[in-house]
């Protein structure tokens, strides 16, 4: 008889192998989905995963896009991973991303048209603060009242979505524009703009911030007391409490950090590739970052790889849209599928099969 037995510690081999296996299985299942949609599955998979990097025609445009898209995903996901490890579920990063963008853009627009070196740094501080403050709502409610941070942070995504719409037609609306509602374009206001650091590379300050965030979280997890507390609280909440780790304080720190990172991602986006506050500013980065965090095994190094892979599916999905007419929503379903396979395959990391020998009669 064979039965499933919990491993004393997760298998290192399977922890590393499951994301790769999950990607492979998603390609197969995605191929089936594309075939059902009446597209050539091999061509669709190649368009999504190969063409953005190596297609003679599109690659020149799409390679820089890889950094543009991976930056915010990695930045948000590293912050989320820290909380997820501690069992603190901030799933409202999308709202914090929007809040950061609004706060940062508001500071930038307040200085318009003043030119000064200090405008952009102030915007960065405001962006981080906006995301942090938005995350503090679920954090404080959780710490003080025990209210589910999952539901509160998620509800606040919808609230932030409405606020950004109100800002685009109200307080932050470009006073000189007559057409579509939206703020002034920050990309055309040099003191506030966040352009490519090396022209055409796709690397703006957001990419730099993502790398710094990865290094910081890595350091925290490996060397700092906070990292130890996070890991302990995740593995054994009761033991953590006996060890004197305050769950409330941990919630506030983890949610605050992930909120600030998401806010920064929003600010770099609105001052860079996004350019302005629009009604539909929310782009889903905050939700996709959840997949990135899991795909990267909640580890900073893994998240970097996962961020690039998800960015690739975004860009590949866009190319597939206009080359083979793949619907935009297919990519979203594709990304969801990836998370399913990953979570299911985790069984192999946490459990093993054991053959039971019958005792001799």
């Amino acid at each position, binding site marked *: 008889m064979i039965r499933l037995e919990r491993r004393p510690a997760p298998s290192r081999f399977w922890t590393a192998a499951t994301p790769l296996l999950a990607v492979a299985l998603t390609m197969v299942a995605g191929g089936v989905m594309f075939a059902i949609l009446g597209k050539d599955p091999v061509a669709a998979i190649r368009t999504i995963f190969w063409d953005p990097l190596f297609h003679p025609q599109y690659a020149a445009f799409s390679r820089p896009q890889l950094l543009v898209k991976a930056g915010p995903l990695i930045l948000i996901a590293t912050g989320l991973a820290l909380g997820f490890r501690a069992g603190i579920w901030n799933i409202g990063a999308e709202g914090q991303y929007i809040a950061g963008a609004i706060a940062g853009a508001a500071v930038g627009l307040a200085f318009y048209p003043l030119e000064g070196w200090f405008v952009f740094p102030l915007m960065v501080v405001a962006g981080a603060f906006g995301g942090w403050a938005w995350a503090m709502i679920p954090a404080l409610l959780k710490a003080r009242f025990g*209210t589910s941070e999952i539901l*509160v942070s*998620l509800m606040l995504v919808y609230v932030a979505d409405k606020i950004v719409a109100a800002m685009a037609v109200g307080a932050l609306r470009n006073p000189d524009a007559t057409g579509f509602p939206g703020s002034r374009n920050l990309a055309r206001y040099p003191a506030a703009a966040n352009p490519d650091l090396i022209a055409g590379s796709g690397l703006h300050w957001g990419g730099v911030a993502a790398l710094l965030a990865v290094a910081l979280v890595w350091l925290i997890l490996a060397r700092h007391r906070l990292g130890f507390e996070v890991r302990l609280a995740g593995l054994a909440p009761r033991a953590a409490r006996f060890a004197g780790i305050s769950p409330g304080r941990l919630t506030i720190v983890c949610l605050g950090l992930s909120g600030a990172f998401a806010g920064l991602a929003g600010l770099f986006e609105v001052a860079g590739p996004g350019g302005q506050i629009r009604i539909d500013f929310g782009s889903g980065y905050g939700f996709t970052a959840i997949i990135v965090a899991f795909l990267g095994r909640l580890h900073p190094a893994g998240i970097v790889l996962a961020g690039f892979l998800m960015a690739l599916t975004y860009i590949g999905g866009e190319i597939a849209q206009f080359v083979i007419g793949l*619907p935009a*929503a297919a990519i979203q379903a594709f990304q*969801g599928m990836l998370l399913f396979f990953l979570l299911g395959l985790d069984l192999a990391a946490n459990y093993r099969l054991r053959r039971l020998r019958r005792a001799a009669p």
Partner: protein
Amino acid sequence: MTLLAGIDPVAVAAALIVAATPILLAAIGELVTEKAGVLNLGVEGMMILGAVVGFAAAVATGSVLLGLAAAAAAGAALAGLFAVLVLGLLANQVATGLALTLFGLGLSALIGQGYIGVRPPPAGRLAVPGLSDLPVLGRLVFSHDVLVYTGVALVAGVWAFLRFSRAGLILRAVGESHDAAHALGFPVRRVRALAILFGGACAGLGGAHLSLVRVPQWTEGMTAGAGWIALALVVFASWRPWRVMLGAWLFGGIAVLQLNLQAAGVKIPVEYLAMSPYLVTILVLVIITADRPRAALHAPAALGRPFHAAG
């Protein structure tokens, strides 16, 4: 209150009952799932899949009832995927629920592409000769679509099932302590699987009510957080069926009131009125959970904990 002068209270109350139905259906299903000790955060995904599949089936067959059946089946199918992952492969319930929502949103947008702007067959309303023509009661009680009554019947049924039936007792036992239930010989996984499927079917129906009756139209992401509000509602109701109905009517009332205020041309920008359901959800959650010992008492003790029979 000149603000409310132009608003007909009976019309508001009737609209409230209709507006409450999607979250009522989704929440009563989730209540059963959670009573069995499983936290399925994928309600939003199951709802929106139900919305689009129900819509597509109703358009294809011309029958709203067939559409509803298809919606329930689609919700249950997605819930089945959740059950396989969580019960079979012992995956983390929170993460899997999130995956369900993300996948459901994507898949529904994919299925719904050809249906934007399409009109569904009209949903029939109950018309009892005599009763439906009563002055106030007629509009309030006797002139709704079939799902409104299904919702109320489900609440009563779930209440009676959990309280009086042996199967309901087993379901609650599984949700309170799966180890004890397992030791007594109850099939923990089968009970949980059935509860999850029921939750999915209810969520699918709730979604279909949105796309076939309430709106009635298909737009991408049309559930707009209704599934999450349903999840909050279960907490608000302290896992009690009748309180779920009360809560659903409260939220339905807020939704209708803010729409009426928008229509009445109040000086508050539309965006701020539209965020009120979400803010009220947060407020209600805080009030309920502020009394921590009592809130913890009502929650099923094994909620969210994976079950792996050792030995």
